[in-house]
């Protein structure tokens, strides 16, 4: 949910009046939420940070034309999702999803030290993360990859941000009924995959 809709409107108004420095406050307010969306879709911390940076660059350049039909977060989330889609397809085409690791797993025989490879960039967890936590996260990320793009996006907005159906429908430009059915389908598919892999 947008943290402070009234405050956002004032910020946007100031920005349009020429005080572009208020954009820094906008970034403070929404960096984390946009990052969570991007990371949820891309499963890569560095890609997610880049997408959010690019979101803000686009928003900075387009904010003067922002009409205010939706709240600012709806607009920002829409940009983030579009950029994340592009990044996702770019990565798949270029094969950049392959982890450049010095230490590819040499066996799958259950030796945790041998199997553990240094994961994709993960500044939020660092060396202290447990092997099990990393495994669960990896399985959820892999399961998400199996979902169609539209279901992934809908589920991230609902589960990560607890957004109401109406707001999701505005961000994704679809009907509320479509949001409902996507959530149901996504949950059903994800549930089956995670049960199969023992996470649930």
């Amino acid at each position: 949910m947008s943290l402070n809709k009234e405050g956002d409107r004032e910020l946007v108004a100031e920005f349009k009046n020429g005080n572009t420095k208020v954009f820094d406050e906008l970034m403070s307010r929404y960096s984390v939420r946009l990052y969570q969306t991007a990371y949820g879709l891309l499963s890569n911390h560095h890609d997610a940070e880049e997408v959010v940076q690019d979101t803000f660059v686009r928003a900075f350049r387009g904010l003067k034309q922002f009409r205010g039909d939706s709240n600012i977060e709806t607009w920002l989330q829409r940009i983030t999702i579009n950029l994340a889609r592009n990044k996702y397809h770019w990565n798949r085409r270029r094969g950049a999803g392959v982890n450049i690791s010095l230490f590819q797993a040499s066996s799958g025989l259950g030796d945790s030290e041998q199997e553990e490879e240094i994961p994709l960039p993960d500044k939020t967890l660092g060396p202290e993360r447990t092997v099990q936590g990393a495994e669960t996260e990896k399985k959820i990320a892999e399961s998400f990859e199996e979902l169609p793009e539209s279901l992934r996006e809908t589920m991230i907005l609902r589960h990560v941000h607890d957004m109401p159906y109406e707001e999701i429908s505005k961000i994704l430009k679809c009907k509320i009924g479509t949001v409902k059915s996507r959530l149901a389908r996504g949950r059903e598919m994800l549930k089956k995959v995670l049960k199969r892999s023992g996470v649930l």
Partner: protein
Amino acid sequence: MKLNENNLKQCPTFEEISTYFDGINEVPGIDLHIEECAACRKTLQDIAELDAAIKARANIPQEDIPQLTARIKDGFYRKNELEPAKYGMPFPRVVLHLAAALAICSAVVYVAVQGLTDDMRSANIADPAQDAVAASQIDKFPYYTSNGSGVLNSNGSENSVEVENLIPANYGSSEPVMFNGGVQAGAQKINPVIIRPKVDHVWVVKNISKADDTLKRMIKNSGTPLQLRQDGSVITMQGRLNKLELVKLVRACSNAGFELVSPVAPQPEQHYFKGNSGEPVNYQAQFLVNKGSR
């Protein structure tokens, strides 16, 4: 709730339970049914577990939020100033074409000049052109110390460097590593980065003993002849490896959550390098805990 011909209550559909989970009660009596029906209760519980798992994955520890926000802002300010054309500035087409032609010509000239000075570099003779390139690279990677000068504070000890209040620049590239031994000049949009024959890095870690374990595993698994020495709260890594191994090592350290605070190539996000991947490099790195906080 639908009743079948025997007047028994039928279970709601998965979608109806899914919508109910989101707080939208569209089916009269669904809540009572779920109370009485173990199967539907299980379905609801599964959705709740899924919700918790997705939230946990997206959760960012509170202590990491300031750094995350700072990195995002740094990246925004950098991109906003350096790459206006990429983000839709209305340049006339002819200006863009001229700029592209100039960039290609510059790249060709640069590669030609660097080729002439390769021998000097491999003999480790001081080369002002190389220093100038290195200096320009330093400018692109803003590392902030407490005095804001971009220079690391040093305590003069040969074995340690004290660093305080550092905010490392944004990292992150999953681009493949390339060495220009096999790439045609002019095909790249950026200049290749020079890796010197001797590289000194300083890394900031969160926990020295965990970092020690991680580094030991890295060295063991990679087979590179690197040695570790821990002296109090500083770990020193030394050894000789080739340029490709060094690039991969730097990325692996970054992937492990270590923060590189030295403005010296190779950096984790760099991917296009001058020379050949097998050229040797003497590498020394110090891993320490950041003593200050922002």
